[in-house]
């Protein structure tokens, strides 16, 4: 088995393990806190992420998944990397919101501009902010329980009429 195939197999097994339950640590790298407000709403009765086996944890050492918001300000570099290192393997990183995906801030002396310039990102969740339903969808994509849908979308209404 090649290294790539081995890595893919390991990842598949890790996701099968996480598919049942997983703990989430959120990290704010300079967001405006609206993403956090939506993340908080995940615990509200209409979404109730606990029923899906997701739980928030205050410690990265207990976490399986990092939910990262904000444009990765450089002042957070040490904290972010320490959090990433403290999270035991296997782990997943989910970048949340337009800032974390590189939409709002350009790279400069203060911000990296996108989370994937600092950490390897497994799932990208767009939105400004992403609604709790979008976050739930992102989490379920991260653990392999739902298929991503955006790859098949064209955002071209004329092309959709033709089909």
């Amino acid at each position, binding site marked *: 088995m090649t290294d790539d195939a081995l890595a893919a197999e390991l990842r598949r097994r890790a996701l099968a393990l996480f598919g049942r339950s997983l703990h989430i640590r959120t990290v704010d790298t300079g967001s405006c806190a609206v993403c956090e407000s939506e993340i908080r709403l995940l615990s509200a009765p209409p979404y*109730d992420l*606990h*029923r*899906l086996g997701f739980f928030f944890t205050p410690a990265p050492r207990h976490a399986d998944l990092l939910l990262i918001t904000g444009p990765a300000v450089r002042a957070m570099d040490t904290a972010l990397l320490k959090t990433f290192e403290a999270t035991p393997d296997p782990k997943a990183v989910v970048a949340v919101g*337009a800032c974390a*995906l*590189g*939409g*709002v801030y*350009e790279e400069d002396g203060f911000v990296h501009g996108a989370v*994937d310039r600092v950490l390897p*990102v*497994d*799932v*990208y*969740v*767009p*939105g*400004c902010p*992403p*609604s709790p*339903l*979008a976050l*739930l*969808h*992102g989490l*379920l*994509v*991260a653990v392999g*329980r*739902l298929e*991503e*849908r*955006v*790859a098949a*979308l*064209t*955002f*071209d*209404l*004329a*092309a959709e009429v033709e089909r």
Partner: protein
Amino acid sequence: MAFWFFRGLGKGIVTTRYPKAIDPWTSALPTPPAFHSDRLTIALVDRLIEVCPSRALAREHNELIFDVGACSACERCVQEGAGAVEHSGVFELASTRREHLLKRVHIGRGSA
């Protein structure tokens, strides 16, 4: 342990895996734009790029490159390009690859 576990046992109801159906109110959520590529012109696309505050739009010759990940759904392009740009209504946009969020829309498709 969370109450949902006992609630589920007591009622004999398995909780849903994900919203069974998407609630109707979600249509009011701000969502990224979708484009009528046949109604787009290069001049209009350049105007859209100018009003976009989050650098989600770019043009490469006669293709509009729409970065869904960078879009903050501010709707400025929907106002600027009324008739050619609409709400997509899609919010389940999570992706495992960043490049899946880059969409190429051919400007003036069908009219050429």
